[in-house]
C-alpha cells in the first residue's frame, strides 16, 4: 500500500498559486515591469499608490499575490529539478530549500504589508 503523503496538500497550493499567477501576474508585471519603466504609461505617484496599499483589501491582494505563486514555484521547480536535471537523490534538500524559500517570501510579504503605513 502506498504510504500516506502530503502531496495533495502541496498540489492544492501549487494549483491555487498557478491560478493566481496566471490571472494576476501578467497585468501587474506589464504595468510595473514594462509599461511604467518604458514610459508608455504614467506611473502612479507615491501618494496614489499608498492610498491603495493602505486599504486592507489591497494588502490582502498583495499578500495573496506574493505567497501563493511562491508555493506554485516551489512545487514546479522541485519537480523540474527532479525530472529535468534528474537530481532525485537530493529530494530532501530540494524540498526544504523550495518550501523554505516560499515560506520565507511569505513571511517577508506579511511583515512588509503589516508594517506599511
Amino acid at each position, binding site marked *: 500500500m502506498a504510504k500516506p503523503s502530503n502531496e495533495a496538500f502541496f498540489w492544492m497550493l501549487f494549483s491555487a*498559486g*498557478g*491560478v493566481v*499567477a*496566471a*490571472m*494576476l*501576474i*501578467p*497585468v*501587474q*508585471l*506589464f*504595468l*510595473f*515591469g*514594462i509599461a*511604467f*519603466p*518604458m514610459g508608455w*504609461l*504614467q*506611473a*502612479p505617484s*507615491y*501618494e496614489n*499608490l*499608498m492610498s*491603495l*496599499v493602505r486599504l486592507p483589501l489591497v494588502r490582502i491582494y*498583495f499578500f495573496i*499575490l*506574493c505567497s501563493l*505563486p*511562491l508555493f*506554485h*514555484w516551489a*512545487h*514546479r*521547480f522541485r*519537480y*523540474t529539478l527532479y525530472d*529535468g*536535471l*534528474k537530481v532525485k537523490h537530493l529530494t530532501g534538500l530540494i524540498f526544504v530549500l523550495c518550501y523554505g*524559500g516560499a515560506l520565507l*517570501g511569505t513571511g*517577508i*510579504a506579511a511583515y*512588509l*504589508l503589516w*508594517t*506599511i503605513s
Partner: protein
Amino acid sequence: MPTVKQGTIKSAPSYTEFHPRWYRPHVSVYWWLGEWHYLKFILRELSSVFVAIFVIETLFLLSALRDGPQAYAHFQEWMRNPLVVVLNIANFFFIVFHAITWFNLAPSAMPVRLGGKRLPDILVAAPSYVAWAVVSAFIAWLVLR
C-alpha cells in the same frame, strides 16, 4: 544474487541461460532538448522561476513603499535599468506562456459534459480567458485611475 553457503555446491553449478535484468535505459540529463513537446514542457515548468522573480520584485516594491517616497523613486530608477527591463520582458513572455498553458489545461483536467456530450475544449477554457481579461482590466484601472 541468491546467497549460497560455502561448501554446499559440490559440482560445477548450472546456470540458466536466460539472465533477467532490470530494464533501465539510460536517460540523458538533456532528454528534453530533442523534441519540441519535451522542450515545451520544461519551458512551462521553468516559467515558475520567473514567477518567483516577479514575487521578489513585488517584495522590493512593497519594501520601497514602506520606506517612503525616496525609496519608491529609487525603486523606479532601478526598474528602468535596461537589464531589468529586458529581464522583465522575458519574464512577461514566460508568465503569459504559463497563463495560456494553465487555462488550456482546464478542459483536460475537468471535462464538462452537457446532455451526454463533451463540450468542446475551447468552450471550457473560454471563461478563464474572459475572467483574465476582466481582472486585468480592473487592476489596470485601479492603478492608472
